[in-house]
Every structure is written in structure tokens, then in C-alpha cells.
């Protein structure tokens, strides 16, 4: 089976001495809807940033579709929607999409076509010529997702995409992401909404203290931890890790 993501011995120590990732190993099969759950500070965002070349990795290897994550081919195949909206303040919605396509090597024509498609898909037409700072929180979230998907990446990384989003938009987003996954796109999702992870993800990994502490299907995790809900699994796994760390 091919892997969208293959990580071996990944470590990240920040300049202030914080060890965010501690020899983490992870493989995500191509085409899977994969969830990454863990408490704040567990290392989820650091892991995502390492995959996307947004931090300097201390140690370890990351392969994206079999290629080093730092290679141009690997970068081209990843789409990232970050946790906090990070939109270019000088560009309108349409321009933000158009230029993103350009950064990822699309021709002007193809980038413009994709930008218009994404504007329609994410209902951004009414705000297409509005600059990012003037968009509402929900519209910014839509634009972030549209931007992540514009260059048709094989691996889409969604870092808490529904944080602070109303229920209606959240359900719309999930519907769309499911549709995308059904077409073969690998999805790596982090979320604090455990019930959503349970419904959407084929496999879930629990991360704590910079390590993967458990990994299975939602049902497999419940069996493994003797729990009836994913929330109980999460609490048991995380608390076990904390006890181990203290001991």
C-alpha cells in the first residue's frame, strides 16, 4: 500500500528548549481520512508545520507520497488550511486564490479557472473582490479552505478547520471534505470536536507529549481502551501518558 505520509523518528526542539515532538513515527495510507487528536500543546500543529516545511526539524525523516517533504514535488502535493486565518491583507478573495495557484505553479489561466471554481464551491462570489481583513470569521475560514484546495493537492491537511465556526458552516464544510475524500484525496485532520472525528475519520491517532500514544479505527480505539466513547478513549490515553511522564 502506498503512503501519503511516512514519518520516522521526527523530533523538534524549539530554540527555547521545548521538546514538541519526541521521535514520532507515523504512516498515513494514501486515500485515507486520518484524524489526529490530542490536547493543546501535544504537538499537533508542530507536526503539521514540519510536514509543510514551516519549521526547522531537529531530527527525523518525513516522506510525502514517497518523496522528502522538503522536495518541490512533495510541497506541490500538500494543501494546508492552518488553524488561525493567515490571509494576505493586500489581496482580495479572488486575488488570494489566483496568487496561491501561481505560487504552486499553476498557469494564469488554470489558476483563474480554479479560483472561480473555488469561489463558487465555497459561496464566496459576493465577497470575491473584498480584501481578507474585511471578511467575517466564517468567510475567512471558507477562503482558507478554498486556498488549501485550489492547487488540487493529493494530501489535504486541515488544522482545526471548524474552530469558531457556526454549526451550519461546519456541516457544510464536512460535507464538502467528505466529497473530496471520496474522490481519493488523503485528508489529515486535527480537531477538538471528538464526535466529528469519530464520524469522519477512518483512522485516528492520539498524540500526547510529542508522541503517538494510540492509533486505530474509532471502534478499535474504544475496544483497546475499554471505553464506550471516543471522549473516554481520549481522556484515558492522554492521562496515561501524563502519568507515565510524571513517573
Amino acid at each position, binding site marked *: 500500500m502506498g503512503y501519503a505520509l511516512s514519518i520516522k523518528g521526527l523530533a523538534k526542539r524549539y530554540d527555547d528548549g521545548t521538546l514538541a515532538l519526541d521521535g514520532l513515527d507515523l504512516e498515513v495510507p494514501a486515500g485515507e481520512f486520518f484524524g489526529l487528536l490530542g490536547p493543546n500543546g501535544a504537538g499537533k500543529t508542530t507536526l503539521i508545520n514540519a510536514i509543510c516545511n514551516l519549521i526547522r526539524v531537529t531530527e527525523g525523516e518525513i516522506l510525502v507520497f514517497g518523496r522528502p517533504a522538503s522536495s518541490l514535488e512533495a510541497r506541490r502535493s500538500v494543501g494546508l488550511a492552518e488553524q488561525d486565518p493567515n490571509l494576505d491583507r493586500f489581496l482580495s478573495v479572488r486575488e488570494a486564490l489566483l496568487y496561491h495557484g501561481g505560487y504552486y*505553479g499553476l498557469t494564469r489561466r488554470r489558476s483563474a479557472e480554479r479560483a472561480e471554481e473555488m469561489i463558487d464551491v465555497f459561496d464566496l462570489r459576493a465577497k470575491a473582490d473584498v480584501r481578507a481583513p474585511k471578511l467575517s470569521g466564517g468567510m475567512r475560514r471558507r477562503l482558507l479552505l478554498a486556498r488549501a484546495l485550489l492547487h488540487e493537492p493529493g494530501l489535504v491537511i486541515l488544522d482545526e478547520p471548524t474552530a469558531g465556526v457556526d454549526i451550519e458552516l461546519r456541516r457544510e464544510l464536512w460535507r464538502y471534505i467528505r466529497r473530496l475524500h471520496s474522490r481519493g484525496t488523503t485528508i489529515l485532520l486535527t480537531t477538538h470536536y471528538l464526535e466529528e472525528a469519530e464520524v469522519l475519520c477512518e483512522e485516528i491517532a492520539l498524540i500526547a507529549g510529542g508522541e503517538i500514544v494510540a492509533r486505530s479505527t474509532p471502534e478499535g480505539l474504544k475496544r483497546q481502551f475499554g471505553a464506550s466513547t471516543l471522549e473516554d478513549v481520549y481522556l484515558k490515553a492522554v492521562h496515561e501518558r501524563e502519568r507515565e511522564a510524571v513517573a
Partner: protein
Amino acid sequence: MSRGDSGTAAGSSVRPEPWRGLMWLAARECLRVSKLWTQTMLAPVVSSLLFILVFGLSLGTRIREVSGFEYEVFIVPGLIAMAMAQAAYSNNSSSIFQARSDRYIDDVLAAPMRPWQMNLGLTVGGAFRATLIGVALGALAIPLTGAPVERPLALAAAAVLLVTLFGALGVVVGIYAETFDHHTFINNIVILPLTFVGGVFYSVEILPSPWEQLSHANPLFYVVNAVRYGFLGVSDVSVWLSFAVTAAIAAAVVAWSQYLFTTGRRLKP
């Protein structure tokens, strides 16, 4: 949300086109300059033009010739060099600082581009802005003062070195700056004073010792003289020395900015 999307898993097999990324990044930086044209273009052109009018045309009649030229003619090259240097520097430092501060630089850092392409793409905005300001000031000041362009090729070479040096310096400061004050500090406390004492308004030959000798330790003195040679065909020092010093400093600053992009230091935690 509508159902019309054609999202696929094809991304893993699509060939990256880093040159295209570079072109789009450069275009984005130029678009920023044009969108903010009142700040990026109009203000520096008007202020430099006021220098020429006030110092040159008003006071010029009371000052004897400098290096064989009327005063209003003599100050034109230095003022254009100063405006271009400040534009190249402040454009890049503010653009990169804002991109880091709002974190939309992540969209560039994650993109399939090589480090030197990111560096070059982010430097182009300052070069674009400085060139437009230089051309606009030249077009206004030359008819006003009658300043000649004696060595057009030398002028072009000096302008390239100038925008490279100060554009790269802007990139470096934009990467290191923790607050907006840091970027203005370098401009107001380093670039502006050094340009002023680098012979924009006078020939350093008229300075008493040791000020004349000390002026030769000012790197901006060589930049101003390289540009002045292009316009007037005269320089306070050997024109080759002016070009060599300017090129050496430009190379050092470009190497510094490239080091930051290659290693990710300061750009990536």
C-alpha cells in the same frame, strides 16, 4: 456550499513549476506597491522633489558651484540615490515584516519554490518601487534643473547595485524585525543619516580633515558617488572603487538574506 468542485487526488503527480511561483511572487510584491501607490510612490517623489526645489532652486543661487556644477544640478543624483535606497529598503522590510506578522508568509514558505526563488521574489518589490521612483524623479528633476546623464550605462549599473543592496537589506531587516519600530529604526538611524553625510548635498572634498577621511569609511558615500558618476560623470573617488565597494556590500547582504532563506533561520521556528 455548491457541488461543482473538481478536487482530485492528482496533486501528488503534478510537476512543480518553481519558476512560475517566482514570477507570481514577484508580481504579488509589485501589486502591493501599486495598490499602496500614494505611500509607496507619491510621497517619496514629492518629498525628494521638495528637497530639489528648496535646497537646489531656492538656496542654489547663494552657493557657488560644486565640482564644476551648479548646486541644484549637483544634488540631483544624490537625492535620487537616497530616495531609491530608502524605497528599496523600506518596501521590502515592511512587506516581509507584515507577511511574517500576519503569517501569510507561510503560503510562500510552504510553496514549491527554491529558497533563492523565494528570496528573489520578495526582493523584486523593492527594486520595482525604487526604479519607478528613480525614473519619476529623473523625469521631473532633469528638466527642472538641467542635470545631464553623462554615463547612462554606468548610471544603470549603479542603480542595479543600489537596489540590490538596499532591497536585500530590507529583506534581512524584515526577517529579523520583531516590531515595526525595528524597520523604521534602521531607516531613520542608519540609512538616512549615512546618506546625508555621504555627500548628497556636498562634495566631501570641501570637508576639513578628519571629516573628509572619515567620509570614506561611510559605505553610502560610495553608493552616492557611483550614481553621481552616472549622471554628472564626476566622482569624489575613483568610480571603480565606488562600484567595487557598492558591489561588495551588495554581495555580502544578498548572501546574508540567502542564508536566512536557505536555513530558515528567523523565518521558521
